[in-house]
């Protein structure tokens, strides 16, 4: 408990120090090259007041959450099937390890051609960014379920279907959870790329469009918003996992003391 009490003020101090250094460095290079915190805050206030900032954050968050949720929902059952059925895995495994090295950004043009310039192509891109990470984690989890668990369930009369539902899925939950948490990171990368190239709104659009007005402070506003959005969603997902999935062995990363 006393450790926790000392950690809070230290963290505040760290952020204050970071901002002070940022301010000092910006004074050396000038606001066009490196806008300082005060300058950035002014830019942020400007964007907040005309309503664009909240709107852009909203639209980006909406795209990410929708694509990520849909992608995860599709990926988990597929991952379980790939993990469970060796025959399918023989073909799926090399394909997955081939395609996961192709970043979502590389698909943007094709997705625009295939799914149009509207929301569909962006959401599909996020789904793509989520999909393979979650599948890989899920089937790795399925493969690492201990044989003894399956055997004991089987000799206690569980059917193959019951084994999947009552043994394999619960035992795989920590892997699935890690997968969808990692996918959140790639989803943010994908959406920014998509919004830079093919969108008229969103945080990615803000960052990219600000170059036309040489508003480096707005770029910083966008960057900070991205960091905050990622940080907060990750914390929320982590907290949710800890609360709801603790019995499956999902632990928080912050509670690890090494």
């Amino acid at each position: 408990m006393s450790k926790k009490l000392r950690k809070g003020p230290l963290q505040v101090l760290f952020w204050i120090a970071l901002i002070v250094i940022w301010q000092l460095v910006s004074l050396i290079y000038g606001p066009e090259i490196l806008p300082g915190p005060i300058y950035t805050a002014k830019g942020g206030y400007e964007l907040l007041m005309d309503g664009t900032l909240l709107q852009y954050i909203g639209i980006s968050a909406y795209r990410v959450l929708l694509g990520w949720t849909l992608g995860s929902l599709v990926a988990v059952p597929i991952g379980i099937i790939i993990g469970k059925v060796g025959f399918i895995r023989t073909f799926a495994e090399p394909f997955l390890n081939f395609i996961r090295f192709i970043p979502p950004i590389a698909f943007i043009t094709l997705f625009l051609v295939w799914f149009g310039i509207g929301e569909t192509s962006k959401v599909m891109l996020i789904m793509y960014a989520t999909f393979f990470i979650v599948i890989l984690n899920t089937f790795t989890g399925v493969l690492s379920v201990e044989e003894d668990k399956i055997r004991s369930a089987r000799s206690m009369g569980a059917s193959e279907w019951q084994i999947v539902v009552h043994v394999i899925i619960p035992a795989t939950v920590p892997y699935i959870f890690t997968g969808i948490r990692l996918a959140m990171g790639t989803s943010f990368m994908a959406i920014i790329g998509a919004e830079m190239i093919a969108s008229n709104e969103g945080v990615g659009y803000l960052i990219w469009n600000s170059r036309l007005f040489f508003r480096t402070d707005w770029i910083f506003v966008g960057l900070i918003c991205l960091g905050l959005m990622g940080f907060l969603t990750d914390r929320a997902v982590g907290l949710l996992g800890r609360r709801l999935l603790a019995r499956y062995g999902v632990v928080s990363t912050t509670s690890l003391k090494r």
Partner: protein
Amino acid sequence: MGAVSRSNEIYIERLNKSYSQQQTAGDLHYIIQDVDLVVKGGEFFVLLGPSGCGKSTLLSLIAGFVSKTSGYLRVGEKEVDRPGQDRAVVFQQADSSLFPWLTVRENVEFGLRMKRIPAARRKEISDRFIGMVGLKGHENKFPRELSGGMKQRVQLARVLSNDPGILLMDEPFGALDAMTRRTMQRELVKIWQETDKTVIFVTHDIQEALLLGGRIGIMSAGPSSRITDIYEVPLPYPRDIAAPEFHDLYNRIQAHFDE
């Protein structure tokens, strides 16, 4: 009684198991070869042998987890080709076989839940066996909150609640400290006497074999392991380690592993 005993009988004749793929007879690398064994219903039979001799393989064959290469293996009236609820397995490692996301009670009720037995009846059964293995008061704990000995008790209660005729136990007390192991051995004998099940118990510990078994089958070192000798242990339970007959049998069995 006769009919019950018959159904829990294990009959093994010229049983072979090889994990190699080649089917030409000469090239087969056998884990166990030409095993003959009859275990009567209600008997406590111990399989004793050095590490890696194929004791666990034989147990897995009886459990139906792996399929034989050749030979005959019957449990009750049925030839074994898959796991069945008449044969329950208590594994060596409780951590890998218990379900960590379920509480003690939920683990014990697992098989009953799979059979869709109503909750009230499930509780009745799990209460009985949780009590029998001495875990009363720990029903709502998770396996990670239990000691090694307690986890093995959960495993035991979990299989007993399904009322199998045969208990297959694979060195279940091997990882426990000496004191806990002694307690567990005593209680296992008591539970066996109360429930009238057939037990096949695998161990490499001669003393454990003598404390538990009505008969002890000695397995030769692998590969191509088989049951070379069977000892009757005509001593009453609970067994007295200090008894001269105990000591005498110990030495005779020990002699098998000395050469």
